[in-house]
């Protein structure tokens, strides 16, 4: 199975330049998730492939251990 996380080194693998601007990759060690209609940067404790999806683990604002679906990181 391929890992849904982006390659850590910025290989120039996805031209062409005419495509719409790609989202900026998140800073090292962080993951961007889509939560309540907003992009949120989190520092995941771990990531896990479950079924068709990848989830990142973090402690949410409510204090609960939470796994959130990880979209492509741009």
């Amino acid at each position, binding site marked *: 199975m391929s890992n849904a996380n982006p390659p850590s080194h910025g290989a120039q693998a996805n031209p062409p330049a005419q495509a719409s601007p790609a989202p900026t990759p998140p800073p090292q060690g962080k993951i961007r998730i*889509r939560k309540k209609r907003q992009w949120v940067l989190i520092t995941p404790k771990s990531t896990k492939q*479950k*079924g*068709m999806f990848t989830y990142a683990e973090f402690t*949410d604002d409510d204090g*609960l251990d939470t*796994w959130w*679906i990880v979209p492509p990181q741009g």
Partner: protein
Amino acid sequence: MVFNTGIAQYYYGTAVYAITPGTYCQNNTSASDYGTCYNIVAGQAVFVQTDTTTYPTGSLPCEKNNTCIRYTTTAGLRTLSTVYSYSGKQAILQYFWLRVHTSTTTPFGGNISSVGSPFVRPDPGINSYWFLPAQTYEQSSWPIYDPVTNLKAYQNPYTISLGSVAIIRWQGTLFAPTVILQGTENNQNNIWYAYDSKIIWAYESSPLAIIPLDFNNDYAPYRELRNAFGYAVTGIDQPGWNAQDIIAALQDIFPNRAWAVYDDVQKILYLYNLTMDYVPDWLINKLAPVGVKVLQSPSDSSTAQAWLNALNSRNPQAGGP
């Protein structure tokens, strides 16, 4: 309105993935192998023998090797399982397949269901001929195919060493908030039957209580649960009105068991006495939750494992072992 699909599969001696299982039991009291069940593919066959003097409970060979469920009382109609029971939620029975191996030579008679066979029925109060125009319809033309009701039935499509085989398939649309699997035994003694069945229904998409329950002991006695969510033998297709109501009811009644609640509005799966490790991939694929939140981690991993084992056994994902 969005609907979910519920699928229940029953393996009682035979299994849908076995094309021509040779499952049978010996019910000739003169035979040396009386009470033995053969070629059990999965689960257990049903054996009715009321004489506990000659055959004490636990003495039949099939009881000893766990290949049958023995009943010591006769029954006209025996409720074998509640497939689902929804209070305040609508459901639509769409399809079932039912195959039975039985000691009875004509398991399905003129009115479709006679002796020694289970049947899928809405509950309460609708008899087995609910899908036929009259009780005597097609009385002498077994096996039958009724194109209007889309009922198809076969008598002995293959043979077994002892007893007979019958298959019924029905598909259609029947609004039925409760469906049960009921054995038609007509108060006969010393009969056996093995069966497998696949039942498919649709129900309104809603928050779900994901906890495998025993209908009679765990679910039916608790009004709080029945007010909060419906029951399904799958342990998954249990819709309620409000995720927080479901969580509150389950915390109240099952504080020491593992369970999950799926909020279909926020697309969040809540876990109780569970961690992400115990959530099977097929459940993630089915629900596709955006988030998974752990309300409480398990203090004892066996609690979480029991939840997972029960879900897997009630929702077989593969075609067979």
